[in-house]
């Protein structure tokens, strides 16, 4: 791979462009997770009572944080990257400069991760206003680092999908058949222990399941069983997806 510090320049380009769309993107990226908090957290939470020894809203929040990171970084590296590549031919101009294709793609993944981090952070603030905050400032700092990393994981996965996408419609397969179901199989809304064995196994294959596990542990400051395994799994998925995302996208850009 031909990566250099120029990743930062690509990131910076996105920042310059972003400042013009900052308000609408905040509204959009906050929307869905906020609905979950309000409907499931407050509405359904009133019926649920306590889950795992804590009020339902408290159970829900750490998962909603990571799901908002997932949504933002995924959409950034699907739609925005596709527009830049196909409609605006921005990548073609970029790679004619000392910026390599690898730099350009990694810069966009980094940007997707940053967008995810912004969404997650905003959700954290909203949740805190609702009385659900991480256990300590250290937990806040750890969550920020973790969310940034998750952004790289989901941004890279999305980049793999984009590298094969002939058009926008293609993204629906990924979002409708993978991302959205993952929300419900990840233990975000309810514990997975009532699932039959085969569903439990399936859930363990999904990156979001592990992201929720880790987020909960950091949020409450209580290491859960399997925490290290979840971190290891996310690390492995992240490294492989980042590598593949750049490789496959590069294959599409350079011929």
């Amino acid at each position, binding site marked *: 791979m*031909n990566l250099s510090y*120029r990743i930062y320049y690509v990131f910076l*380009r996105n920042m310059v462009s972003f400042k013009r769309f900052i308000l609408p993107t905040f509204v959009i990226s906050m929307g869905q997770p906020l609905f979950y908090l309000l409907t499931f957290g407050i509405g359904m939470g009133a019926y649920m009572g306590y889950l795992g020894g804590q009020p339902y809203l408290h159970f829900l929040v750490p998962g909603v944080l990571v799901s908002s990171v997932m949504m933002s970084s995924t959409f950034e590296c699907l739609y925005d990257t596709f527009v830049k590549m196909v409609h*605006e*031919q921005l990548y*073609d*101009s970029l790679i*004619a*400069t*000392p910026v390599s294709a690898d730099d350009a793609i990694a810069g966009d993944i980094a940007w997707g991760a940053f967008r995810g981090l912004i969404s997650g952070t905003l959700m954290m603030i909203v949740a805190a206003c609702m009385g659900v905050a991480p256990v300590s400032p250290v937990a806040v700092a750890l969550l920020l680092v973790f969310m940034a990393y998750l952004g790289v994981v989901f941004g890279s996965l999305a980049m793999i999908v984009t590298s094969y996408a002939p058009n926008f419609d293609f993204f629906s397969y990924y979002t409708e058949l993978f991302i959205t179901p993952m929300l419900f199989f990840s233990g975000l809304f309810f514990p997975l222990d009532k699932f039959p064995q085969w569903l439990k196994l399936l859930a363990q294959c999904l990156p979001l399941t592990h992201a929720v596990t880790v987020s909960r542990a950091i949020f409450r400051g209580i290491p859960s069983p399997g925490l290290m395994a979840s971190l290891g799994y996310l690390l492995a998925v992240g490294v492989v997806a980042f590598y593949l995302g750049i490789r496959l996208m590069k294959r599409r850009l350079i011929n």
Partner: protein
Amino acid sequence: MSVAISARALTKNFDDFVAVKGISFDIQEGECFGFLGPNGAGKTTTVRMVHCVSPTTSGTLTVFGENAHIDNRVIKKITGVVPQEIALDVDLTVYENLMVFSHFFDIPRSEAKQRIAELLAFTELEAKKDSRIDDLSTGMKRRLLIARALLNRPRLIIADEPTTGLDPQARHLIWQRLRRLKTQGATLILTTQYMEEAEQLCDRIVIMHDGRILKEGVPAALVREEIGAEVVEIRIGREEDARLIGLLSGASQGHERAGDTLYCYCRDGHECMKRLMELNLPSVLHRPATLEDVFLKLTGRGLIE
């Protein structure tokens, strides 16, 4: 003058399709070199290899002594590319487009500001500094692409069909700018389908067709050698060809039939016309020979799709 770019048996395959079929050429430092050819001739593919965004399949290609492999940053740093498509960053303003691009070349911010001011003046875009890209005319967009390509003060400028879709005024303005760059010492590579553009700008050209170089030379000399001084176009049915060619023998040095027209290439057009006058033909056009005649003679007058 030293050789700036040198290609030997340069070949490019896309899967089963051979886009460039073992071409060789040398471009001297400081000259304007044109690649002419119909759509799909391999011009853009060739220049994309030169500026290191497309890998070569076989053969050698050097740019200022550097091997032009994919992502060669030494070459990319000294090359400015005016792309065929209007690939500007539509989310940014004119100024931001240039500033973001100067980052890519590691140009310090204060230096970049100065260069951007110079280039906006050079391309007559000062008044549009803070405009969004969508608010620019096609001519302005093309000029901005030129400004962007010059940010790194390139030794090599590659302009890939830089005037496509422009009106004559805008086209002439771009030609003036490109000529001025050449007088400032830059090496220029131009691809074009416009013969007038090549005649205006290029010191030497190659005519490409179907991935091969058909002809190489100085535009005026090519016209003289391939066509002659003048062309007489006679709109007349095919059945008259033999009679007319016989009539013009000696005065005409070649002829070609395309559709409803017989083209006669003449050393002395007046002599040809004098002989044709006697026939009192309804539609005869007498004009100087141009590069377009060379181009059409070599690549064929039929439609290429």
